[in-house]
């Protein structure tokens, strides 16, 4: 087997494993895994910008929330059915990502982080400000009757798992294809040394802009699905915490690896799940993980595996 086909087999193997697991997992973990796959899709989107392009955004909750509210508000207030509502959410995310990119990409490094943080915060506050429609922190429930997509009831656990798996497969596959394409390789080169890439004749600004829109669109899709599958949209999903989470998951799993976002989300989810028996302050775990990862394992789990055992892992 060539190195390239080993890579394909490994990644498709994960998707097949996740598909198969639904038949054997007990209900509790079955539900968890559905949630993890949607959140991991969010992390996959985040990773395209952070891991592969080298742009550390602190504002992805803006895109996640754009997807969630684009979907939720059209169902709630305009009587949309799930399919067009999902599309509205995803398009809204793409649009917001493009707009923020036009502004934020004028900056680099720390400024980029702060600019994305500030605009996302403004987005969060906007959700609160229009509490009449969004119900603010309290949020609103999307009723079971409103969650039937082409005759499939998404509040049903099996259907929900399948939808989550579908979303994850698409974003995961897209990410794998992207980073092996010449566009993705250029993104990686931009992460390593942007000026050199520019002097090889690439329009690095356009590449970064495209990367941010792709990243934001996947994040928005995750947000839209999350709201639809679990039947709820609330302001906390727009808060700064939801910008930090994908950073945390990707750092833990390994930034700039295709598998990393899923692995990081999985580990963090169960870490918090297990620790909830000891403390309700789950953010403490998140904080400790951030500090420890920064100090001791900036490569993350999959990054470490790549460094030691499997150099060509994308």
């Amino acid at each position: 087997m060539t190195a390239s086909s080993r890579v394909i087999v490994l990644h498709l193997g994960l998707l097949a494993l996740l598909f198969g697991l639904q038949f054997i997992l007990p209900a509790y973990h079955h539900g968890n895994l559905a949630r993890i796959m949607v959140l991991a899709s969010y992390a996959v989107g985040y990773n395209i910008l952070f891991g592969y392009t080298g742009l550390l955004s602190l504002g992805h909750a803006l895109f996640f929330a754009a997807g969630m509210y684009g979907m939720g508000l059209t169902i709630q207030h305009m009587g949309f059915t799930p399919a067009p509502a999902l599309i509205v959410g995803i398009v809204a995310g793409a649009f917001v990502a493009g707009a923020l990119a036009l502004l934020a990409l004028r900056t680099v490094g720390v400024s980029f982080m702060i600019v994305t943080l500030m605009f996302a915060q403004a987005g969060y506050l906007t959700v609160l400000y229009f509490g009449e429609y969004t119900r603010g922190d309290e949020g609103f429930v999307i009723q079971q009757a409103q969650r039937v997509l082409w005759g499939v009831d998404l509040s049903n656990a099996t259907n929900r798992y399948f939808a989550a798996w579908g979303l994850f497969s698409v974003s995961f596959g897209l990410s794998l294809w992207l980073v092996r394409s010449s566009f993705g390789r250029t993104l990686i080169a931009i992460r390593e040394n942007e000026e050199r890439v520019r002097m090889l004749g690439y329009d690095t600004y356009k590449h970064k802009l495209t990367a941010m829109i792709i990243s934001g669109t996947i994040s928005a899709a995750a947000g839209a699905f999350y709201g639809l599958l679990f039947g709820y949209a609330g302001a906390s999903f727009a808060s700064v915490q939801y910008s930090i989470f994908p950073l945390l998951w990707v750092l833990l799993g390994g930034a700039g690896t295709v598998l990393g976002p899923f692995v990081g989300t999985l580990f963090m989810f169960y870490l918090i799940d297990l620790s909830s028996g000891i403390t309700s302050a789950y953010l403490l775990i998140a904080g400790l993980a951030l500090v420890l990862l920064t100090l001791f394992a900036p490569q993350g789990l999959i990054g470490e595996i790549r460094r030691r055992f499997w150099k060509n892992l994308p």
Partner: protein
Amino acid sequence: MEFGPHLLLATLEGAVTAAVLALTAVGLSLVFGVMRVVNIAHGEFYMLGAVIAWYVAHMMGGHPALGFFLALVLAPLLVGAIAVLADVIILKRVDYDPERTIVATIGLLYIIQQLTLMTYGPEARPVEAPFNSRIALPWFEWGENGFQFYYPWGLSTTSYKLAVIGAAGVVLLGVWAMMTRTKVGLLMRATQADRDMALAFGIPVERVYALVFGIGAALAALGAVLIVPIQQAHYLMGADPLLLAFIVVIIGGLGSLPGTVLAALFIGLSDGIISVFFSPTLAKILATLLVGLVLVWRPQGLFGTRTA
């Protein structure tokens, strides 16, 4: 209340905000100026100051002034020590890399906040002011009898609020004197101007960093002790000061003490005034957008460019 007295009241409230904000922002600005890192956990140092003040006041008993003044000394010292520890354990190890420092201080933010929640709890608790007499304020009008003063109902402040403004002024003067008149200040300014040169001249840059991080946090804590008789201590109270201090540092220019103080006055006063007349959420939306846009339109401005 009529518009004029209302505006005076808003201005006074704004001046108290501005005084505390100036302390917090100068702390953040000092850290950014000298160390070239952004401390996202700065608001949590502020919150710790308030919470420690409550513990001290609560344990002291006796006359409220006793606990308060002890807190005024102890809280900044303790918070400063915690910050020095964080600097040595975390920031030094990531070599003050700007991006990794932000990620690490986000982690620190959650750690401090959640540990406070687990020990101090979710309640908001007041600290009694050491003195608190109400001072009614006069307003003037052109009445039938010509120009005359009167005391509109509701137009008043307290002796404590005025004292906060005064105390902040004194501390700021002290910081200014430290930076310009002392050897420690000279070392800080040398490190700020050129880190490598400072190293070459044998300045213990790492110790200067630890000290600056400690002083920055202590200033935030001091601001919080001053405000806690007015606002109560709560584990989530660090978020707003962080945002406002950010705005101030970005508008005031980094490392510039007078610029930071001026910007704090401007933001503190306008925040007070805007919050009285508009929805606080709208005011915050405008403020965050302002920070974002200032950074976008002057990208080479404050945070410099990353070398690839």
